[in-house]
């Protein structure tokens, strides 16, 4: 069975990039355009891993992590945050909220797949 990814990002470009890489690598790809939609979609998609941006309207990435971890929807699903290079404090904060790991933007295909591998064990 394909590994299901739920990507949450308000940037169409990033969503497209993720979709292209992940679908080619054989993942099942789902996406949401902001944190609120992501959290709402979560139960239906029931993903194996969540990738979320931090800066988003409606509900930001920290909110997503807190809601997924805190409300008991799923306290264990791996959550990867998309961050930019200069934000170690963001990573610390995301981890504090319960993020599993992070993907640094800009990412290449290999590092994206590698990150997913480390949190889901799956290459696809």
């Amino acid at each position, binding site marked *: 069975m394909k590994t299901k990814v739920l990507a949450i990002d308000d940037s169409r470009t990033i969503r497209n990039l993720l979709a292209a890489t992940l679908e080619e690598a054989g993942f099942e790809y789902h996406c949401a355009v902001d944190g609120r939609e992501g959290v709402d979609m979560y139960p239906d998609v029931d993903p194996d891993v969540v990738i979320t941006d931090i800066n988003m309207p409606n509900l930001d990435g920290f909110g997503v992590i807190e809601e997924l971890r805190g409300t008991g929807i*799923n306290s264990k699903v791996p959550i990867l945050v998309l961050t930019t290079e200069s934000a170690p404090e963001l990573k610390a904060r995301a981890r504090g909220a319960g*993020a599993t790991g992070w993907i640094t933007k800009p990412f290449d295909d290999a590092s994206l797949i590698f990150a997913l591998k480390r949190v889901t064990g799956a290459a696809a």
Partner: protein
Amino acid sequence: MSGSIQDTFFEECEELLEATDEGLTAIEGGDHDSEVVNAIFRAVHSIKGGAGAFGLDDLVAFAHRFETVFDEVRSNRLELDEKLIQLLLRSSDQLSALVEAARDGGEIDEAHNDTLLAALDEYIPEEEEDLTFEPMGLGGPAPMMDLGDLGGAPAEPQEETYRIRFQPLKEMYGTGNEPFFLFQALKDLGELTVTMDENELPGFDAMDMSEAYLAWDLVLVTKETRSKVEAVFEFVEGLCELSINGDGDAEAEANALAALDAMFAAPPAADAAAAPEGEAPAAPFEPPVPAPEPEAKPAAAEEKASAPKAESGKQEQRGGPKPTLRVELERVDRLINAVGELIINHSMLAQQIANLNVSDTRDVETELEGFKNLARDIQEGVMAIRAQPVKPLFQRMARIVREASAATGKTCKLVTEGENTEVDKTVIERLSDPLTHILRNAVDHGVEKPDDREAAGKSKIGEIRLSASHRSGSVCIEIKDDGAGVNRPRVKQIAIEKGLIPENAELTDSEIDNLLFAPGFSTAKEISNLSGRGVGMDVVKNAVTGLGGRINISSSPGKGSTFTIILPLTLAVMDGMVVSVADQTMVVPITSIVETMRGSDDMINSLGADGTLLSIRGNFVPICDVAGGLGLYRESDQQAGVYLLVETETGQRCALAVDDIHDQRQVVIKSLDGVCGEIPGVAAATILGDGKIAMILDPESIIAASPTAAAFDTERRMSNAS
């Protein structure tokens, strides 16, 4: 593949830049709301994120500074004063320029870029300026992590054996990290042996579910670099006790020392791991069961229970913008084409019914009328899909005015009105260049220098008003400046110098103003690189007429000039007069017809050898025979007896001679592009009710090509002069 993603990136950039501009305009207007600031921050941040993905370094660097300043603002560490707002506005312009340069491969003004970067830097506190990545300073047992070296130095092809001691802290399990997955990732790098150390596992009664008791000793034989091995543990750094020791790892003294430490600290583990594969303690890939695992089941159950609740909350929480649907333009165009066919089909049906010679067609006609109205409704609906507000276009124009003001040392502000007026997408796209040109002109030539303005009793700041409105089935765009107005004596003098008008021509004020649109006219003494570039307002006019529109200028000395652009609402359908010329059916756009009349011989006067003039209520108007203009020949019994009085943009009137007028109706414009080359006098084609193709005429070009009209025009100017 990546090409199309890059295309969507640039498309998205346009939207994000608009959002940025919109936010900045709100801020400029005094709205410093945190949501406005946040929205700009997000927009710039998204541009940076996407730009990074495509390696657009200049754009990333600029967006980063810009974003950082905004971060300061939204954290209330920086106040939005006038100076900062101006800087942000200019930075937003530069961001657009960088996006454009990245997209079109153009050059950017490096000096300007650097100046802005430096100006932005002044608002960024020292510690934030450091863009280099600092690994998370957690001071754990793995101090040598080099996170930045994922795909770095080429790997030494030599095999290396790493002994890894991995003991998760209980905090790790709260982050969703699973040792098993990490081991799988390690296994990708080479040959891995895993030994679970459960020595610390207490008896079942003493076990605390929230504690972590397990540790693993791993031996990895790999040709990959050390940094790749370390990268596997990147996410759990600080959440575990970790040591990684390479056997032949002598490249760094620190590593060697760490290796020694490890050997002294945990000799049994090292021994066990070094044991040959298959022996008792080695347990490759038994899925480990971490302590808190039992929690997973109730969580999953709860997840199902909470699903409907989350679903119902979905609708309520959708506030903000109206839901939209992104559709490929091509699909909409297909629909527009189909509607066009529907309209044609309607006229065909009407024609067929008329041909049936049925005595009582009233019922059918009522239904046909209903059909027609529905077709119009659908057409309007489809047009509305293509229609977009002019707002983004107007926002770009604000930038043009800022740039032009900066370049000329003048101060101008752009006031926009009717930004929500909707216009066909193509019209908006093709309007960008002419508007840019007119606005640059308005700043460059229209608005006076601040001192001159003051002397004239005006505010130092010039005002340019850009407005859009719907006016009886057309769109009206007006550009009004409060500058000096057209310098008529100077314009006339130039026109004479360039041979555009005879030296002794007597022109009305309006005629002089409209000389600005004459080909080859440019009032700038030297071609400024701002509004000039060697093209004049005639290019603007051509662009507008190319869209089926008209442009006019009116000016009042000392008070300013107004350019008025009238455009059709749609490019797909128009109202036309169906006429016949030498057995051919043709369509003349209604918009260009002033009046129609049947002529009699006594109304016709001759001009020169071949020319004829039509006398209308005491005025002479040159006659252009459409048949002659298009190279058609009439049979002897045919005669042009009907005249369509048309007026050109320059106010030149002309009577188009046709054989007969049939009716007035809506026709679907079918472009001739790609079907045949440009035919002088013909703008496009359409399909009529009887299925025949009819040419849609372009009166302007017929008149322009008419020797009679030209001769008459010269004559008129001469007679005006005398």
